[in-house]
Structure formats: structure tokens, C-alpha cells
């Protein structure tokens, strides 16, 4: 049976898990989309995006559109793999009998 300690600490955080769960279903998402969907503040979201980027789970691209900065986030293959492992570990934790 998986324990909480087995769950990836990078993903086992409310906001970081929400960000990765959003990115896993899309090609790219803008910072403003992530902010709207998670309900997080810009500052907190920036901090968590940086942590995910440093862990290699997401890529961040900065562009300009009509002179306004645009931050695009995309999940990496490593991020997809870690998310998949996290979901599997979570299933094992929640349904230990079905393992």
C-alpha cells in the first residue's frame, strides 16, 4: 500500500497539483488561464510555476502580444510521467485492496 510519503512532494501540493492537472489536458495554457481556473493569486501562482519549472515538470515561454507580456506554460514529458506515477500512487493509496 502506498503511503503519503510515496507521493511525489513536488506534485503533492494543492496549487502545483492543480496546475499540472490543468496542463496535462492541454497543449499550452496562458498564465491568466491558470490564474482564473485555480483561483490563486498571481504571486503564489508565479512561485509554484517556478518550482514546477525548476523540477523540470513544465516549460515556461515568455512572449509579447500587442505589447503585453504573455506567459505560456506547457507540461514536459517528465511532468506527464510524474503526474501519471502520482495518479497511480494515489489510486493505490485510496484503493489498497485493488493493488
Amino acid at each position: 500500500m502506498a503511503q503519503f510519503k510515496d507521493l511525489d512532494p513536488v506534485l503533492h501540493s494543492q496549487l502545483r497539483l492543480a496546475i499540472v492537472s490543468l496542463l496535462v489536458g492541454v497543449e499550452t495554457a496562458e498564465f491568466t488561464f491558470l490564474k482564473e481556473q485555480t483561483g490563486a493569486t498571481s504571486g503564489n501562482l508565479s512561485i509554484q510555476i517556478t518550482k514546477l519549472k525548476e523540477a523540470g515538470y513544465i516549460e515556461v515561454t515568455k512572449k509579447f502580444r500587442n505589447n503585453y507580456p504573455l506567459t505560456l506554460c506547457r507540461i514536459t514529458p517528465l511532468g506527464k510521467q510524474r503526474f501519471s506515477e502520482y495518479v497511480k500512487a494515489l489510486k493505490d493509496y485510496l484503493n489498497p485492496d485493488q493493488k
Partner: protein
Amino acid sequence: MENEEKHLTGEESLRIITDMISKTKVNISQGSFHLLFWGWLIFACSLGEYLLWKLTDFASPWYVWLLTIPGVFVSLIYGFVKGRKELVYTYATSIYIWTWMAFLFAAIVLFIVVWGNFQFIGPLILTLAAMASFISGIIIKFRPLIIGAITFWIFALVAHFTGPSVSPLAVPAAMLTGYLIPGYILKYRKDHGTI
């Protein structure tokens, strides 16, 4: 989501994952514009060609189809301008767009191949358009578009097997069932935007 280091239970993790994934739906906010624009344009071209053929001595009634060339640019520019404003780009949106781009490329090749024999093009274009509509309907889980695609295939057969006095009307009839009716349903549905 302020207290990001708060201890998460397994159930909370699962709920976050489920909630967030449900928010990345297919964006179809442009869908009704393209269906209605092409529905009316092809309806007008096909009916115009039929009326010119029936009621006038005009030698080349197929000239009305040249209106589709600026139509392609209108559609591409509208899609590009609206697409730039999207905050998120899903895989399904990408497949939806490229299905219609593939239809455009196939239609251009078809026009070149059948050049000079335009009496055959109606059923062929309808068959191709049906495939793109069918796939789009499946992607956005929108049954009227799937049914509309099936009617395209039926009208393609009708156009092929009926005589020249009836077959030109198959295309405008197909536009009603395949593009215009699904387009208006999509436009006026309450959750227009995402599915």
C-alpha cells in the same frame, strides 16, 4: 488556493485532479461562426448556380463558386484573430482546426484534379466535408453535427444517382441539414463556448 503547503488528503488530491481536468474542455466558441458562414455561402453559391443554369443563358454559371476563394481568406483571418485571443489551446482544439485545414487542402487538390468536369464535384466535396464534420462532431461531442455529416453522405448519393434537374439541389439541401441547423443550435445553446 492560497495555502499551497496545506496537508492534502488522498481524497482532496483526487478532487483537485478531477476538477482541473474538467476545466480543460474543448473550446468551440468559433464553431458556430464557421458553420453558419460556410453554410450560407455554399447555400447561396449552389442555389445561385442552379438558378443561373435554369433561368438564364449564362454560359458559365459555376463562376459563382469563385466566391468561395475570398471565403477561405475570411475564415482563415477570423480563425487566426480569434485564436490569438484564446487563453488555452487544447489537443482537441488542435485536432479540430487541423481536420478542417486537411479538408481545405483536399478540396483544393480535388478542384485541380476534376478541373473542367465540375458536374462531378458536388458529391465529392460533400463526401469530404462529411468526413471533416463527422470527426468535428465526435471531438466536440455535438450530435447535430454528426447527424449533419451523415446527411451529407446521403445527399452525396442523391446527387450522384438523380438526374441533372434534381442533383444540383442536393448541395443547398445538404447545407441546411449539415451546417446551418447544427450552426444555429450551437450558436443558441446555453453553454456555447466550451463542451
